[in-house]
């Protein structure tokens, strides 16, 4: 098991290196001149060239990429100019390892940028995950147990309706009506735990989390319903009933345990995807998370930020996958290696 995890982590690191290279190549394959963007609208061609040189965009792509990798391992200084460092050390920005780069657009290292946005996105994804998994599994199981009744049809129909609504609609509705007009809950403002404690933190996450949860829940309701129904027709569930087990116990111990495996896979991947994918919700609630950072960085051709984000989110997907695979072995004894 341990060796397996080590192997998976190793493969994950290689994958990340390849991902960074692909991002570099893709970025420079686009017709946009990053120096022109960094310099501003009224720059002359000479000034643009100078900017490109200062930012290192004039070097070959592969060299920029190896410089980047070196920065990740040993750290870098921006700008990487020994002469400037000797003359005016206050102008040089230290970027210790693992250095993901320096965003000229935001005048800050990428590490700091990500560190600032990361807690919000993580909190938001966790809050949403908690709500949609609880709701999705609960309603899915209820629908499966009451299959064919009005309760089942109601749950499935309702979840489809939420699924069909776009995020900005649900988000705006919750914000405009539930929070602002009807004042059922306070208008959400993100407060880190360190500043406002658990209560304010949760309060800030409730509405945006609910927005995301309602979107994701539909799939989980239908999936859970299908998995539970499928497992209820399995032979071992018949065996459990033939033993004389109470139907509640048959459901919880035998049916739902079997339905857990596919759900865990989905939860892991959806959670990782949500870390940087909650762009619309973050925009609606004006939360500065990773999703919003990604959009801003793309619009301003901020290469270092883009690469940093790609690697961070990629790491999340890879780690989530490893965790899911390890959980498989915990859930299903047939998967256990050795």
């Amino acid at each position, binding site marked *: 098991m341990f060796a397996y995890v080590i192997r998976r982590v190793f493969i994950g690191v290689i994958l990340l290196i390849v991902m960074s290279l692909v991002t570099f190549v893709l970025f420079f394959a686009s017709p946009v001149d990053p120096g022109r963007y960094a310099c501003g609208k009224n720059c002359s061609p000479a000034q643009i060239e100078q900017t490109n040189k200062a930012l290192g965009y004039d070097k070959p792509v592969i060299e920029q990429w190896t410089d980047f990798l070196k920065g990740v391992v040993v750290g870098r200084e921006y700008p990487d100019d020994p002469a400037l460092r000797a003359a005016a050390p206050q102008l040089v920005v230290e970027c210790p390892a693992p250095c993901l780069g320096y965003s000229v657009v935001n005048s800050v290292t990428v590490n700091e940028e990500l560190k600032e946005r990361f807690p919000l996105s993580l909190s938001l994804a966790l809050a949403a995950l908690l709500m949609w998994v609880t709701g999705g599994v609960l309603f899915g199981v209820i629908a499966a147990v009451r299959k064919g009744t009005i309760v089942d049809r109601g749950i499935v129909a309702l979840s489809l309706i939420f699924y069909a609504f776009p995020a900005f609609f649900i988000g705006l509705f919750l914000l405009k009506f539930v929070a602002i007009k009807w004042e059922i809950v306070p208008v959400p403002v993100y407060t880190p735990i360190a500043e406002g404690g658990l209560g304010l933190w949760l309060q800030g996450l409730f509405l945006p989390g609910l927005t995301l949860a309602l979107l994701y829940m539909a799939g989980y309701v239908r999936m859970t319903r299908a998995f539970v129904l499928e497992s209820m027709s399995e032979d071992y569930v018949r065996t459990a009933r033939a033993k*004389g087990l109470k139907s509640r116990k048959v459901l919880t111990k035998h049916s739902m345990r079997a339905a857990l495996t596919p759900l865990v896979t989905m939860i892991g991947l959806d959670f990782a995807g949500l870390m940087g994918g909650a762009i619309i919700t973050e925009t609606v609630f004006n939360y500065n998370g990773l999703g919003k950072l990604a959009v801003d960085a793309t619009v301003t051709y901020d290469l270092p930020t883009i690469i940093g984000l790609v690697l961070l989110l990629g790491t999340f997907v890879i780690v989530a996958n490893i965790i899911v695979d390890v959980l498989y072995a915990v859930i*299903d004894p047939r998967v256990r290696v050795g």
Partner: protein
Amino acid sequence: MSSFLSVRDLKVHFPTVDGIVKATDGLSFDLERGKTLGIVGESGSGKSVSSSAILGLHRRTSAQVSGEIMLDGVDLLKLSDEDMRRRRGKDVAMIFQDPLSAMHPYYTVGNQIGEAYRVHHDVSKKVARARAIEMLDRVGIPQPDRRVDDYPHQFSGGMRQRAMIAMGLINNPSLLIADEPTTALDVTVQAQILDLLQDLQRDFDAAVIIITHDLGVVAEMTDDVLVMYAGRAVEYGSCKEILTHPEMPYTWGLISSIPDVSGDTSAQLIPIPGNPPSLLNPPSGCAFHPRCTHRDKVPGDLCTTVLPELLPGTRTEGHLKRCHLTNPDVVYEREILPEIAPDLVEER
């Protein structure tokens, strides 16, 4: 005095959008403790559905079960769901066909066997585990104290079926239903499992119902035989009677389609022509008439219009058959026996 298990006019109907599927349509039989009944028939003849009904496994929402199932003087069909649940696994237990899919892949064998014990006995997990080990030992699993913590996939097919039997017998049931207990197993293992079942039946003095389509199993294990076709009994009697003097063309077909490896191996198998009928829309008259090669011996169109009653045959009172033929014993002697056992005929 009525028998230990007495099933009367058992009907299991499944309402569907296309109509009512009559999976079991008026089944009656009796069984005493210590005796074994074999229920024989093709797939879809209603064998498993009937036995699931005895265990009360059909959900009320999907199946309509009617008739009478008297077990030791109590009508199981009149019990509430909760009362039936209390008897399930305790008074009546069942062993299923495929032991791999019939055991939960995520729980250890010991956990699943112990669970069957704990449902009906208020004991700790430790006691249940000890009891599971005891039962595993009883069904002939080597090193039961170690194997008890194995998962089903770590057991071989034969051991899984032994474990299933241990699970079925852990509460000393008075009625054990074995639904094709050897179908999914190797031939060599089949004999071991059958021997084990016979031993345990003697020890526990249980009534056993064996559902099978293997007449070899019937010959070895059973006291009585019930042949089912399209949800109804078509022949019912003692094992010896049915196997030596069958009086219903469907039973003839079943016997003719057994390969005889000890005799002339070049002899052709004689399969029953056609397929089992649809239970949604069964044939008129005798359900077997579309596949019956003897219906020209019955005058008029009796076979296609009138459902024959289950009546005593030509030889003994206890041998019942559902057929319009007036002289099945003669037809069997003259037409069937020479084909399936020519040497036997010559001897006579």
